[in-house]
């Protein structure tokens, strides 16, 4: 694996999964993985051992629900969808991310002298 692949913390992965599901609607694990890898410009490589536990955890927390469906090529696959709680959680997480990002940016910007 290459040097410019980023590590994904579990909390941020959860955020990415929720956002993906919000934008694309109910999706199977493969679809989620492709979308996240794509959006990151292939800087993130998700293996199953990272993705699926995260999905299970989100399901345990009640932010997503799952059901078995037929995929595009008529293969049986498990689809995940956002729940209402998941939507609320996503909104909150996004707000917190932006707040944190602004704060850090203020610190890192070469500065306004006091």
């Amino acid at each position, binding site marked *: 694996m290459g040097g410019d692949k980023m590590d994904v913390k579990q909390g941020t992965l959860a955020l990415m999964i929720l956002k993906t599901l919000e934008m694309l609607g109910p999706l199977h*694990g493969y679809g989620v993985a492709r979308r996240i890898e794509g959006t990151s410009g292939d800087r993130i490589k998700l293996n*199953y051992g990272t993705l*699926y536990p995260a999905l299970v955890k989100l399901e345990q927390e009640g932010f997503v629900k799952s059901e078995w469906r037929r995929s595009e090529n008529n293969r049986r696959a*498990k689809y995940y969808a956002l729940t209402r709680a998941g939507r609320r959680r996503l909104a909150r997480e996004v707000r917190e991310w932006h707040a944190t990002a602004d704060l850090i940016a203020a610190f890192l910007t070469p500065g306004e002298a006091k």
Partner: protein
Amino acid sequence: MRHVRVALARIAGVFGRGRSDEDLREELQAHLEMEALENLRRGMSPEEARRQAMLASGGLVQAAEAVRDQRGLPWLEGVWADLRYALRALRRSPAFTAVVAVTLALGIGANTAIFSVVRGVLLKSLPHRDGDRLVYLRHSMEGPGGANIGFSVPEVRDLRLGVPSLSGMAEYSPWNLVFRSDDGAVRIRVGLVTGNYFEVMGLSPLLGRVTEAADDGSGVPPVMVLTHDYWVRRFGGDSSVVGKQLQLDGTPVTVIGVLQPAPFFPDRIDALLNMVISDHHVSATMVEGRTHRMTEVVARLRTGAGLEQAEAEVAAVYARMKRDHADAYDAGANHRIAVIPFSEALGERARPTLWLLMGAAAFVLIISVASVANLGLMRGVRREQELVVRAALGAGMNRLRRLVLAENVALSLLGAALGVLIATGGMGLLSSLAERYSPRASEIRLDAPVFAFMFGLSAAVAVLLSFLLSLPREGALSSRITGQRVSGSIHRHRLQRVLVVVQVAVSVVLLAGAGLLTRTMIRLSEVNTGLRSEEVLTIQVPLLTPADLLFNPASDAGAKERYEEMRREIGRLPGVLEVGVGSPGPLRGSEVRLEVKAEGRPLATGEPTPRAQFRTAGPEYFRAAGIPLLAGREFSVTDGRGTGWVVIINETLAEGLFPGEDPIGKRLAWTGDVLRFTPISPDWRTIVGVVASTRDGGLDAAPRPAVFMPFAQELAMGGTLVIRTDTDPAALAPAATSIVRRVAPHAPIEQVLTVAQIKDQSVSPRRLNAALISSFGILAVIIAAVGIGGVLAFSVSARTSEIGIRMSLGADRGRIQRMVLREGGVLLVIGMAVGLLAAAYAGRMVRGLLFGVAPNDPTTFAGVAVLMAVIGLAACWIPALRAARVDPAMTMRL
């Protein structure tokens, strides 16, 4: 909230394992296929597409494990897997598992059973409200029978006023009443209480109500509260008994309630009544007489007050009492009042025996664990191969330790499960033992704390075993892979030897204890009761109640006639040699103890006033009971009312009052302040005879001084028929009791016992002690013997090549045998030496339970040493023989 959801989901996840595993497999498979399909569309070849998809996945197995970790409770499932593995491993060696399980079961079961007794009798909190603030006041003095003399009403009044750290004092007066019903008459033991009794004791009624202040005094109807035990025993727990009236001493008494289950001290009580039932108790003599001591006192400490404070205040008040009323206290007899926590008083008699049993059970557990550890060590050698392979496959040391711990936990739990059976069985036996020693015996049961103890014990055993059988360190494991034959490390052998020495030592201690207790029991049963022979039957028939005696003396004549009639009728039965009447019967202590004075022998200052038991006897009494006459004459028919006061005294009193002189013809008299409350005359009485002393206070107590008055001259305060036969006295009982019932149909008949049975009552608690400890001891010896034999056998099998070499170098069979025996013998000797030292120390601690034998009795110890040596050598014999039979040719070839 989120975390709770996750936790719940995880717990649910533990259960749905099978199906969700399949689902996951399918889901991952689907992902893989979709990725492969995409790769194919990008232009890879089918094999390449699949391979790249596989690589990207990072491994399906790992993914599945990661999901499983998130889904269920991984540590729990890990433990479960370990336990299943352990059970499989144990099933593969059934003999080992069986022996270990039984050995542990014995240790854990015995300890659990005894702990259940200790908890019920000593540790459990009292059912009384704030029971730990209750204290018992004990008034005592020196001399036989002085251990608990009770309080008089004025004394209680002074204490109540003068001890502020006691917020309330509950008094009760133990009393007997005759309860007549359709089933006949029986004497019950009651407590007469004042209105505040239940309030101070903190007891509530289970049914109905309890007595209160309104029930005090003399103008109120008599009422009674049944104790829980009595209610269950006599009325079968029937709640309709509340409100009924029972005939007590001829008076109808209403049952107003049933009390919650609670222990009583010092006597077992059947019911509690208000004072009005007994004219005596509301009379002036009772209320004013300072020496008329008939009351027991339990008090409650005020919140914030401590025991020492109460003790100090009581001592101060008591000193003042003794000063102000010096004539009520015998200066030489060292009167004192002790203030004891009530819960401690309840456990007094049981404590020494229970600690003995706990100690013995702990020893058995030590031996069991040592045995199991040895077995485990021997088995461990074979397991090592398997553990080595596991280590090579990637199991870390922690995992291996967990495996070993799991196995030991499984064994312990198995042992505990079997131990429950043993505990349940043992509890029945121990409860009946405890009943003799403690009023709380009915509270013994296998409840939650007992189970907690058992599991705690099992866990401790498992941990201890795992610690003893510690795995060799990491480097050592890999060195074994090189394939050298494992013959056991030196460390392991030393540990085995130490364990064997421990087993032998502990067995010796148990055997010594068993020996001492057994000799105690034998000594006790050999004690000369003082009676000449034992074909004597006694029947207690109290025709008159104390109330009758005190307030209706005319009834005495009628009672005496009936006793005489009974005596004559029974005398006509075949096989009867003599029938006598007396009160109390032989080998029973008298409840009445009074001061005596001898004519012409004034007391020196500081000398305690002599006291004697008050007893009555008819002319045939001594002959019937088999009490030898040592001097003078027995009573005759002419010793009746108005013909001059005569008495017979026993040897102990003769030596006390008239040392070295002949007491016949001298005179003595009853004296003391309390006499004025009784119908006993203080006139001088002439001594006409001296009889041998008998052990009336129990076989292990010294004989007490006693004065016998002719049955005809004093009130018939309860009579006992004494029947001497030349056949089996027990066979006579039915005929004799039917005669009694015919002559006195309304009288209670009690204690129909032969003298042999009375003697047995004194011996049987010791017998039970001895039996229990002996069985522990035998068990211990067996386990220890098996232990030595096993270790030696193992040592021999490990050293076969060495033996082969020796034999080929010229050692003959005998020499090999002696070598093995010497190895075992050394362990035995060391173990016995340690054990005998420990036994000498332990013997001192159980001194209180011994009788007639010193705590380090040399005969017992010698016997134990010989027994252990013989058994130990026998256990070594077989391995020695097997060693001698080793064929050097066979061993050399390997």
